[in-house]
C-alpha cells in the first residue's frame, strides 16, 4: 500500500470492499477524526464508539461518496458530524467543548515550543463566554453549520448567530489590538 495513494483511489477501492484500502484510509484519518470527536465528547469509550460508527458507515455505505461533490476528507468529516449528532440526540445531551484532549505520555519535548502559543491562545479565547467559545469550536473544529449547531445545543438559531458574531468580534478586536501593538496589518472593514 503506497503512502501516497490518493484518498479518492482508496475510497474507490473501499466501495469494492477492499480491506487493504479500508485499512489505509483508517490509518490516515481515524486519529484525526478521533481527536476531533474527543473534543466534543468527554468519554473516551463513547468517542471510540462514534469513530467506529463513522467507519462502519464508510465500509457499508461507501458508495454514497461522490468525488465530484467534494473531497474524501470532507466526506469523512461530514459522516463524523452526522454520527456525532445522532449520538447527542440519542443520549439527549449537548456537546461539551470545554473538556478537550487528555495528556498523553511518551511524546517527548516536541510541544515545548508551542507552550507560550497555547497559553496565549487560551488567554485570548478566555475572553469568550462559554457559549461563544462553544459555537466557535463547533464551527471551526467540527465543521458544523449554524443550523446544525442550533440543533445540537437546542438553542434558537438567532442565539447561535449572536454568540458566533459576538465571539468573533471579540477575537477580531483582540487580534487587531495585537497587530496594532506590533505595528502592521491592514485596516479591517
Amino acid at each position, binding site marked *: 500500500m503506497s503512502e501516497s495513494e490518493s484518498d479518492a483511489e482508496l475510497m474507490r477501492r473501499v466501495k469494492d470492499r477492499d*480491506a487493504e484500502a*479500508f*485499512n489505509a484510509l*483508517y490509518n490516515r484519518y*481515524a*486519529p*484525526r477524526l*478521533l*481527536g*476531533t470527536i*474527543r*473534543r466534543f465528547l468527554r468519554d473516551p469509550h463513547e468517542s*471510540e464508539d462514534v*469513530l*467506529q460508527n463513522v*467507519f*462502519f458507515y464508510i*465500509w457499508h455505505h461507501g458508495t454514497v461518496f461522490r468525488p465530484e461533490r467534494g473531497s474524501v476528507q470532507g466526506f469523512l468529516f461530514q459522516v463524523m458530524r452526522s454520527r456525532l449528532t445522532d449520538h447527542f440526540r440519542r443520549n439527549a445531551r449537548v456537546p461539551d467543548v*470545554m*473538556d*478537550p*484532549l*487528555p*495528556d*498523553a*505520555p511518551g511524546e*517527548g*519535548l516536541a*510541544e*515545548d515550543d*508551542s*507552550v*507560550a*502559543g*497555547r*497559553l496565549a*491562545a*487560551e*488567554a485570548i*479565547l*478566555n475572553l469568550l463566554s462559554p457559549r461563544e467559545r462553544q459555537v*466557535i469550536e463547533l*464551527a*471551526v*473544529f467540527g*465543521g458544523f*453549520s*449554524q443550523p446544525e449547531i442550533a440543533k445540537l445545543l437546542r438553542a434558537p438559531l438567532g442565539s447561535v*448567530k449572536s454568540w*458566533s*458574531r459576538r465571539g*468573533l468580534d471579540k*477575537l*477580531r478586536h483582540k*487580534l487587531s489590538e495585537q*497587530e496594532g501593538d506590533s505595528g502592521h*496589518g*491592514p485596516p*479591517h*472593514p
Partner: protein
Amino acid sequence: MAHLTPEQLLHAAGPGRPVPDHVRQCLSCQTQLDDLATLLSAVAPAPEPPSLTAGQLLSRWAERSPRRAAKSWLVAIPLTLALLGIFMPQPPPVPRQALAATVSLPFAQPHASVRWQRGLSYGRLTLTNLPAMPGRVLTFWFIRNGSHVPVAWIPLNHVQRRLVLWFQVPAPDSSYQAIGATLEPAPYRLAPSGPRVFFAPLTSSASKPSPARG
C-alpha cells in the same frame, strides 16, 4: 465587495478547509482568516490513535450477529453494575504545597522548569510569567505507564510573574517517565481533561533536572 460572514469565516478557519475565492482578492478578509486560523490552530484537537485497528473492526463486524449482540447486552448490564460497585475510583493522596513565593519580573514568555531527583519526596517547580486565566487551574502530573499522578495545582486567577513551588511526590522511587501540565477547569481532578501546555520526559539520571522552555 461583500466580506465573509462570520459563519463563512469560521468555517474557512478550520483545518484543511478550502479557502473561499473572495479571500484571494480581499486583503482584509485574508488577514482576519490567517489570524483566526493561527489562533485556533494553537488549541486545535490533536490526533489520537484509536484502540482498535481497522482489521479488528472488520473482524468484529463480520462476527457480529443480532442474536449475539442481544446476548452481550444481557451480560454487559449486570457486569457493568457490579464493576461500578466494586471499583469506584478513590481520590488520590493530596500533595501538600510546602513553599510558594512571588516576585516581579519584566515582560517575558511563560516558562516552567522542574527540579526533582528520583527517590526524593519533594520536587521544585519554577514558573514565570503565568497569564491570568480565571476559572482555569494549571495542574502538574507525574506520568508512569500511561497513568497520571497529580502533584501540583496552580489557580490562574491573576498574573503571576514568578512562582516557586515545592511539591510532594507520591511513591518517589517509582519509575515515573515524564511530567506534564494541563489546564483544568477545577483542581483535584483524578485525570487530565484539559489541553496540555507542558511536557518533559524525566531523564534516567537521578540528579539531572528537566527544565523546559514555556
